[in-house]
């Protein structure tokens, strides 16, 4: 029933930009199918020290529709986060990714969950593309227990270990050596997987990147450094911060590829190419030419260092979602109404997730002291007088200030020495002590023996 046998039989190098004739088009359901489709990227790749991959990307209707849905979801999520921030439900720093969705979505399409991704603080959408749920996103942004980091991390610290998403980092550029370390571990374990270490054009001027790149090249690590070049490092344009803003070339001896980061299919092609390259030849740099519509963060209006015309110009001409929409419509894979329905669905999903996240409670006060250290041997200490610790533990019971679960936690307390109950005063925090509540009684006996 597929009409695109035509497409499949067309040679790889021929471009297929024109829509297929409507006489041969058969309406297929919105979910699409896997019949192959070849699309050309918006611009050819520019390469440095390597041969650029072909402009023709293999895809299929299902994938395109997934792209559309995922990007619409991310876009909606970021806009919702904007509103939540203005409503003061999200506080602190919030860096939004709208405009750059194609990078997250295209990358994910080219790799598996066994490959690692690590990025900086603009991580909400990357987290979602790695399998994070909307509830985890909004709950974390609002600092609730249902968040991916239990509310303790915040916007800049999203992680998802089971799908190899390593965060989520606030210090600019610090994630790149980490990423090269991930690649080292992959090579060490002979996983045949790769790591994508993302950073921005601002971070590209950090020295630690070049250090990590040198080591990765020396050791042939499967590290792919991806520069998400949105052309502004907070308020500083790329040409004011970098002598050579051709970030894909700055690896010098490391090959590089410049990609149109607003074209999800180009991103997919480049990441596929990079993965193959990295597994064989070591590190490679990808530069994604992308754009963020919002300012650097919610406290930056985003218009003092660039014109509104520029922003709306990019939105009109290069918006990643619009590109996929046009592609879908021109290939007759869905009607406009169906796509609008998808957007409505997505909006509802986001609203539901927000409502659910709002119901999630704030973390318990005892959570302050969990996860400072991992449970283990040796990281325990008692008060100067071990008996005191027992007393205080009982005192804390009255307070229900701390969860007395089998969790390892740091205790800070005041010794209300002469009183058996804590009374009405708030605990004053003096010296922290750590102990493992479980084994305390036995240790106490040992100590007093």
């Amino acid at each position, binding site marked *: 029933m597929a009409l695109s046998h035509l497409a499949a039989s067309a040679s790889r190098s021929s471009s297929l930009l024109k829509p297929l004739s409507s006489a041969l088009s058969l309406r297929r359901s919105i979910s699409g199918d896997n019949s192959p489709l070849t699309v050309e990227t918006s611009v050819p790749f520019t390469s440095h020290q390597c041969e650029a991959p072909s402009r023709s990307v293999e895809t299929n209707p299902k994938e395109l529709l997934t792209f559309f849905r995922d990007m619409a979801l991310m876009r909606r999520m970021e806009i919702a986060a904007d509103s939540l921030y203005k409503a003061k439900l999200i506080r602190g720093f919030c860096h939004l990714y709208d405009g750059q969705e194609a990078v997250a979505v295209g990358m994910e399409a080219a790799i598996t969950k066994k490959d690692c991704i690590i990025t900086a603080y603009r991580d909400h959408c990357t987290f979602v593309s790695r399998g994070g749920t909307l509830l985890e996103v909004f709950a974390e942004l609002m600092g609730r227990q249902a968040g991916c980091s239990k509310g303790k991390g*915040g916007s800049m610290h999203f992680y998802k270990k089971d799908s190899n998403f390593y965060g989520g980092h606030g*210090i600019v550029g610090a994630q790149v050596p980490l990423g090269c370390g991930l690649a080292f571990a992959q090579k060490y374990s002979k996983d045949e997987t790769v790591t994508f270490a993302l950073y921005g054009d601002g971070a590209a001027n950090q020295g630690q990147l070049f250090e990590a790149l040198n080591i990765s090249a020396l050791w042939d690590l499967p590290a792919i450094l991806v520069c998400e070049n949105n052309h502004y490092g907070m308020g*500083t344009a790329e040409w004011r911060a970098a002598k050579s803003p051709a970030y894909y070339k700055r690896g010098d001896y490391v090959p590089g590829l410049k990609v149109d980061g607003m074209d999800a299919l180009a991103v997919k092609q480049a990441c596929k190419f990079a993965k193959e390259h990295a597994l064989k030849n070591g590190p490679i740099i990808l530069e994604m030419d992308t754009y963020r519509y919002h300012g650097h963060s919610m406290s930056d209006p985003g218009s003092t260092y660039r014109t509104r015309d520029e922003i709306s110009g990019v939105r009109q001409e290069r918006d990643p979602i619009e590109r996929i929409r046009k592609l879908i419509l021109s290939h007759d894979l869905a009607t406009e109404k169906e796509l609008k329905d998808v957007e409505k669905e997505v909006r509802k999903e986001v609203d539901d997730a927000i409502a659910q996240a709002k119901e999630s409670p704030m973390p318990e006060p005892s959570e302050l002291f969990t996860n400072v250290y991992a449970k283990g041997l040796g990281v325990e200490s008692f008060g100067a007088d071990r008996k005191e610790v027992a007393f205080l533990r009982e005192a804390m019971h009255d307070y229900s200030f701390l969860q007395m679960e089998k969790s390892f936690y740091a205790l800070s307390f005041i010794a209300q020495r002469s009183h058996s109950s804590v009374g009405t005063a708030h605990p004053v925090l003096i010296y922290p002590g750590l102990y493992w509540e479980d084994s305390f009684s036995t240790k106490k006996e040992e100590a007093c023996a």
Partner: protein
Amino acid sequence: MAAIFQGVGAAAALSSSPSNSFDSKKFVFSPCRSFSVRKGASFAVVRSDGRVNLNPKGRRAQQLISNAVATKSDNAAASSSSKPGHELLLFEALQEGLEEEMERDPRVCVMGEDVGHYGGSYKVTKGLAKKFGDLRVLDTPIAENSFTGMGIGAAMTGLRPVVEGMNMGFLLLAFNQISNNCGMLHYTSGGQFTIPIVIRGPGGVGRQLGAEHSQRLESYFQSIPGIQMVACSTPYNAKGLMKAAIRSENPVIFFEHVLLYNLKERIPDEDYICNLEEAEMVRPGEHVTILTYSRMRYHVMQAAKTLVNKGYDPEVIDIRSLKPFDLYTIGNSVKKTHRVLIVEECMRTGGIGASLIAAITENFNDYLDAPIMCLSSQDVPTPYAGTLEEVTVVQPAQIVTAVEQLCQ
């Protein structure tokens, strides 16, 4: 959180009376006295115990009460036009200090991320690039290690750079430069090079900024020999300390706090600096010495109101100089009250409080009637969730309890 700053009468005590016999209750309840400025005075160094170095004419300054927040002082606002000095916010005070020093000395330059065209992420350097040009207000790429090192290198030749870390936490990337070059070069070169650099930036726990952006670097830097550290807390001392830091031949690390930038105060029109090594007597008292700095000063002053109501008379000192400590002022206070409470935002382990306890114990142990109490932040990475973040940091209620404990 804004509630903390309202109604806090941070009384910076500058008194003309040499006997220092204040009616401390008056201080707390009537914080709105005016400061009469002698016209024509060009320079005044304000000392922490209230003495003011005066012009030769001999007329003494009246008491200067620096109200940390102008919003509450409605009675003062009525005659604001006739009051001397001008009102501004803390970040504007810093900017004024910077601007005046840059005008005064052409060797002063500013470097940092987004300090120039953007105006600074906290607007401290707003307008400076337009006024002084790109070579004196330099927008650096994001490369803290390098531009801090470059600042230090420039300082070695005699330039006087003011390096901004957009958040103090980012200066961890420049730790090697600060420790080895900034701190030690004067010594290792046998005195040939001085490093008149000022490294400034906001630090401290803000409003849910996350763990990496809520760090208190004063604990990490305090061991570095050769540097000075100061922490500003009011617009008055912000401007004064900034100017003093720029004029100092020694490297100064200037700690600002993210939550204090919008404090409003009336400061004098004329040129003044604050002594870098002196502590500030915020509120004289008799029962207990409370040592604090930066944002915790406001928590302490809020607790002080409660304590005064309960009949206690705390003496509050803003230590301002984190390295070296002003042990003279602190010592005098300890000798008077015999009880010490330290309230700080550093973590308990290895913080400023820990060093202060050691210093006071070593020097004034005989004068203490009770062990020194230290309230610090918890030894945990600052969590994002608002409720947890509040528990991480010392709150006024805890200060009240601690004083009650101490004065039993």
